[in-house]
């Protein structure tokens, strides 16, 4: 009786491929890659940290360009419009825009003429002949000059 020696189904290379070893080398290479990365050598002491965090370059500079608004008295920056006055004007224009929207009805319906805003007790002048008139039921504000 001759024993049959089990033979390889596939005639492959002498050294078997070892997929298990590949995973290990991947892990090692991940840890190895860390070796070449920059890392702090020593803990930065709180004294060193304080020197960095508190040096004058990092502190907030105080502004010398703040002054009171001549109209309302609130504070403003010299090169910027007063926030309070701007808000006041913005509210009035929002109301006027709402009225214009109501007059027009649908979007992109504006007539090809100028618009004139008239407050209480004001009549349209001769120069406002063909213009669109928006009525506001209040006294004319001091900052919205007519002429």
């Amino acid at each position, binding site marked *: 009786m001759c024993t049959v020696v089990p033979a390889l189904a596939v005639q492959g290379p002498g050294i078997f491929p070892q997929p298990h070893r590949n995973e290990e080398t991947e892990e090692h290479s991940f840890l190895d890659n860390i070796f070449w990365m920059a890392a702090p050598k020593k803990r930065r002491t709180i004294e060193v940290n304080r020197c960095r*965090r*508190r040096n004058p370059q*990092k*502190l*907030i500079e*105080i*502004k010398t360009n*703040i002054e009171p608004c001549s109209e309302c008295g609130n*504070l403003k*920056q010299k090169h910027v419009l007063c926030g309070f006055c701007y808000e006041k004007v913005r509210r009035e224009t929002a109301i006027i825009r709402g009225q214009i929207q109501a007059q027009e009805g649908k979007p992109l319906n504006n007539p090809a003429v100028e618009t004139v805003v008239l407050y209480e007790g004001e009549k349209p002048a001769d120069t406002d002949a063909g213009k669109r008139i928006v009525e506001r039921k209040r006294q004319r504000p001091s900052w919205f000059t007519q002429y």
Partner: protein
Amino acid sequence: MAASCAVGLGVSLARGLVRYAEASRLLAPCRVLPQSCIHTTTALEGNKNWERKNRVLHQPQPPEETRRAAEVFHCRRQIKYSKDKMWYLAKMIRGMTIEQAIAQLEFNDKKGAAIIKEVLLEAQEMAVKSHNVEYKSNLYVAESFSGKGQYLKRIRIHGRGMFGIMDKVYCHYFVKLVEGVAPTEEPRTGFDQAKEYVQQLRNRTIIHSL
């Protein structure tokens, strides 16, 4: 600092958290205690010492003594902001008059600036209403600093199954307003510091000598 990325593996961190929870349960306030060590506050409440400073009652002053300046202590707790970032604003307004401080904070773009401005206005109102301050602009910022509040912890997921614990930072802000004009400190020159150092050396004595 804010995001403490302690990269750890899932299981060991879970064990650590469980241990922390068990320890805190063991140290919970007991019902029966001897009178000397009664805890009336829990760990979650924190110290409220700054608010208590307003309730201090001084002895009446003799007529010849200079009038003690009125002091107002105010604070805001658990502000959703970083204590380190808040510190820069607190440092900026130290020593300023209250009007100057409010002006600077109004035009500062930081998130904490609006909050500190609210606190200062509240303190100013408190001073005039209940702390016998005559003029609301006659106040200056004597002390101003920030402290760490109670943080919430969240999980921040990294790659490769790693995670870190993210802190949701909160801070407290404390301010002390004093009536009157701020005392001007002369800037100490290097020469002054050297003089003081030499004086300290000269003041040393040898103990147990003849």
